[in-house]
């Protein structure tokens, strides 16, 4: 029954996403939603590494920017075909991800976070200062919208919305398959305990590296979509501020959960839109809320809901067991320990 319910929720979310632009007719809202979908793809990348593998990379915006700038430079300066540039941008991001991963994964825990924070900042600096290539602070202007695929063109905001939505759905599906495969369980095993994972024969170096590269791939994908959607990029997109934005979305939604990136991104983006009149004072609200969330619900909103429904299910089971016992007029005995709450 629980699975059935989950299917309904997914279906409802999907229908909402499909009909949203048709219902609102508000171009600004569609724009914000498209942008949220793009961020979500990036957040999924961060989730795979930080949430499932247990390695918090703070270079994520750097790889987002590498994806965006690769696409921008290949289309604007090299005049490449859009989709060829798009694929190449993903390859470039993943290759740089591989090289950075080789070095970064020699460190662990907070050392890893600090190391990647530096890497991210260096990426930002390179983009900012290498003016002959990246145009520096002036940014890259005139990035083309996604090229036609056969008869379908992506020039209108509405078609771009659906393009981004489809890529997001593919990303979520890919993520689902990864998490529910042996590979995903291997990542979770590494998060759980690296020593233990090694002791059962997992090559942790190899698996951490694939997780890192996959995570940068999704960052690059997100960045390339961003560049083609906004059509102007500046060095700011590689700044650590963006990394922490993505991390906020992930923490609010639920780190290490499959639907956390969607929930967190939509919620935070929507709330920031609503609170825009407060300008930077918004942070006075976000800061404490985030702190409380991390303390009381370390697995975000999705984690909180999951443990709440588990508790309810446990209570229901106990109650029905008690009723059965009354009916059978059994002598009262303790309730089986199997009914303890299991948090998943």
């Amino acid at each position, binding site marked *: 029954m629980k699975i059935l319910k989950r299917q309904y929720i997914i279906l409802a979310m999907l229908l909402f996403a499909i009909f949203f632009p048709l219902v609102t007719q508000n171009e600004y809202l569609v724009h914000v939603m498209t942008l949220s979908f793009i961020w979500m793809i990036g957040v999924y990348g961060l989730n795979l590494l930080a949430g499932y593998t247990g390695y918090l990379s703070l270079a994520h915006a750097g790889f987002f920017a590498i994806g965006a700038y690769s696409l921008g430079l290949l289309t604007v300066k090299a005049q490449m075909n859009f989709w060829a540039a798009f694929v190449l941008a993903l390859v470039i991001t993943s290759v740089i991800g591989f090289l950075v991963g080789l070095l970064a994964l020699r460190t662990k825990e907070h050392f890893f976070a600090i190391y990647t924070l530096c890497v991210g900042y260096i990426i930002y600096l390179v983009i900012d200062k290498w003016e002959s290539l990246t145009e520096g602070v002036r940014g890259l202007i005139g990035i083309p919208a996604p090229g036609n695929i056969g008869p379908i063109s992506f020039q209108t905001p509405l078609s771009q919305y659906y393009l981004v939505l489809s890529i997001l759905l593919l990303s979520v599906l890919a993520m689902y398959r990864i998490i529910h495969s042996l590979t995903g369980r*291997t990542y979770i095993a590494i998060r759980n305990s690296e020593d233990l994972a090694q002791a059962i024969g997992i090559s*942790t170096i190899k698996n951490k590296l694939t997780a890192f590269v996959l995570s940068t791939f999704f960052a690059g994908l997100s960045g390339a979509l961003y560049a083609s959607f906004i059509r102007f990029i500046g060095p700011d997109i590689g700044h650590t501020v963006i990394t922490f934005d993505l991390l906020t979305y992930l923490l609010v939604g639920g780190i290490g959960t499959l639907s956390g990136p969607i929930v967190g991104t939509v919620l935070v983006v929507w709330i920031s839109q609503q609170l825009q009149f407060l300008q930077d004072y918004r942070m006075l609200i976000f800061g404490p809320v985030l702190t409380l969330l991390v303390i009381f619900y370390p697995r975000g909103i999705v984690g909180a809901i999951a443990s709440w429904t588990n508790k309810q299910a446990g209570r229901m089971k106990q109650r029905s067991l008690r009723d059965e016992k009354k009916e059978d007029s059994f002598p009262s005995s303790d309730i089986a320990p199997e009914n303890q709450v299991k948090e998943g």
Partner: protein
Amino acid sequence: MLELKDVSVKYGSFTAVQNVNLDVSEGQIVVLLGANGAGKSTVFRTISGLNKAASGSTHFEGSSISKSSPDKIVKSGIVQCAEGRKLFPMMTVYENLKMGAFVHRSHRKKTKDSMEYVFELFPTLSEKQNDMAGSLSGGQQQMLAIGRALMAKPKLMLLDEPSIGLAPLIVEQMFEVIQKINREGTTILLAEQNANAALKIADKGYVFENGSVVLEGTSEELFSNDEVRKAYIGA
């Protein structure tokens, strides 16, 4: 089968294990006795490649494994069942066992056979295969830890304090199972503080003190040794 020659292990400048020589022959149960901090676990971690020896060499079935990575060592047939029932608490019993067969992940048939063998050995695990590992009792968790180690089809199993924190009756069952696993062809190296129970099933033993072996011999010899009796058996 397994031979350690003059192995020393250091944590920084601290020498945790000094010039240890061990010899385990195929089919044996060998026990390492010693108090907390005597170096037993460090020896285990060194055999399975989690720590590197500062000097000395480790040979398994004639070839050196001193420089092999932990996953290579598991593939060669040495599997450690770590102390303190280390499981993946957020995974189900079934998933934990499946992870144990990681090195054989391309052989579905082999994995299935090992799973059946483990369920036969521990019927409780079969009943609870869809429960979260974190919800099991202490004894069941230890069974799962041993079961998971068996999934890798080890030639040599390293068992670090399987009796720790368990009720006496469960400890007895645990040692019976260890004996059974041994009879069915797995060589066992066991670290224990419970010398009485361990020496009963072991062929030979080594006594550790402050990181080095102070005594070695067959279980009968150790059992009748006054110092061992005084220090570890309490009679």
